[in-house]
């Protein structure tokens, strides 16, 4: 029995449409659901007041600080390492044993689940290096987690810079370092920024690696060796221990909004860059 291709096509398109609508519906539902339940509880006080009674009432201010500080420190450390690695791999060396080992390391690191980073951060930073549950331990653990992303995206971005730009730069008397600094990196910037934004997003959403290294103290930190709780960890504790569904929804909504803002910023920067180039 053979079916006419036109009927197969009709059936296939029908099934595809159905599955796509289902997929998009589920994904949209998640955002609408969280916003519907959470947005009404978000207020100035919720964002900028101290939590009361384990987070049952009051605000989330310390966790907001934690959510800004932890990714920020991680990015400040990981960006030079990641971009430096990418520049080394693309500009300063040719494919050889060492570059293969470096790439292999980055690939493996990218595949490691966050709970393993948590375990490692706990035994290495918290225990062995005696940093305790702290901003320091948490950020350093995040550095390990986001480094491969930054290396990969920077490398792709650097490779996408036309070779002719480098040739022109050399022919105008630039050294390799001047070429990297004045021609390669500026033109790879949008890609590098995208990688950084991705990493910030991932750090904000991370729970497993953070809870075992930065701890979950709700007090305001006074130094980088104090423990801190991020919004994701706060949300997890609120939801998991059934402390307050209302505040959990509100925290989740704030989390999604932060991610949204970060995505918007990276799109905006990207467009700015493209516009500036052809002004």
């Amino acid at each position, binding site marked *: 029995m053979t079916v006419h291709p036109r009927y197969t096509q009709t059936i296939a398109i029908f*099934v595809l449409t159905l599955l796509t609508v289902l*997929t998009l519906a589920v994904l949209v539902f998640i955002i609408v659901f969280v916003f519907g339940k959470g947005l009404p509880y978000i207020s100035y006080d919720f964002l900028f007041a101290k939590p009361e009674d384990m987070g049952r009432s009051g605000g989330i201010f310390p966790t907001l600080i934690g959510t800004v500080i932890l990714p920020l420190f991680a990015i400040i450390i990981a960006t030079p390492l990641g971009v430096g690695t990418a520049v080394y791999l693309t500009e300063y060396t040719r494919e050889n044993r060492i570059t293969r080992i470096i790439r292999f390391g980055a690939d493996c690191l990218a595949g490691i689940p966050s709970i*393993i980073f948590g375990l490692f951060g706990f035994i290495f930073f918290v225990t062995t290096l005696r940093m305790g549950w702290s901003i320091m331990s948490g950020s350093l653990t995040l550095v390990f987690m986001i480094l491969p992303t930054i290396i990969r995206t920077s490398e792709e971005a650097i490779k996408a810079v036309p070779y002719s730009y480098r040739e022109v730069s050399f022919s105008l008397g630039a050294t390799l370092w001047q070429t990297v600094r004045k021609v390669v990196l500026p033109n790879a910037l949008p890609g590098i920024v995208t990688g950084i934004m991705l990493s910030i997003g991932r750090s904000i959403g991370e729970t497993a690696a953070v809870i075992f290294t930065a701890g979950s103290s709700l007090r305001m930190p006074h130094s980088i060796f104090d423990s801190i709780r991020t919004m994701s960890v706060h949300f997890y504790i609120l939801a998991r221990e059934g402390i307050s569904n209302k505040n959990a929804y509100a925290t989740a909504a704030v989390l999604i909004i932060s991610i949204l803002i970060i995505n918007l910023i990276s799109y905006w920067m990207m467009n700015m860059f493209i516009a500036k180039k052809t002004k």
Partner: protein
Amino acid sequence: MAIALSAITMLVLIVLFIIKEGLPFIFKIGITDFLLSTDWEPAAGKYGIFPMIAGSLWVTLGAILVGVPLGLAGAVFLSEFIPQWAMKTIKPTIELLAGIPSVVYGFIGVMVLAPLIREYLGGPGLSIMAASIILGIMILPTVMSISIDSIKAVPNSYREGAFALGATHWQTIHMVVIPAARSGIIAGIILGLGRAIGETMAVIMVAGNAVKLPNSPLDSVRTLTANIALEMGYATGMHRQALFATGVVLLIIIMLLNYIAMTAIRDRGKKK
């Protein structure tokens, strides 16, 4: 140069420290007892992680069954049948969804999905099925957006060639476009797989975490990752070492997966 070695140094550090904490324990207990025994009672000195291995595999398999068909269908539909302007809003939305913290997905599983399963299908609700569906949804954006990119990367001349030979749009898609985009699609699936097997907090929230071998998709189950995260907070001594040993097993599974993925992609590259 020194900077460039940071990634590999970090990898070595991680592997070294996890193994240093976990491996001696495995040898003390015995590899077979640790991997194949079904009794996990740290208080009684019984450390068998077989139920957790089974749990991880079931939940990951389920996530693939849910996420891959949906993700692929969505990717094909969106990249082949949707006008460019609509994609401009849909693609960023998908990327936003990839950025939503996993705990949020887990919470929705608890509040929405688990009650539905309990009511209509029976069982405790928090189950393999709930975890599979939630993980499947979580990996959807990853699978979808990488597949879309690789389908978009197939040159238009391929499609024109197929059309010129009298193929319908669907024949063109499944005989020309998908095979040409295959390695990218596989990379997306493997990334999704890695995310599913490594996910911790969302799974803790929806899988129920019972330490026993499951009999049906409606049973509660505990994964390797959940086992570590649930007990890490209070474990000491032998018990803590047992959790690091669980980490070693997880690490080995992930490394194996990555290795298979990398060779699969490399072999395909050679064939071309």
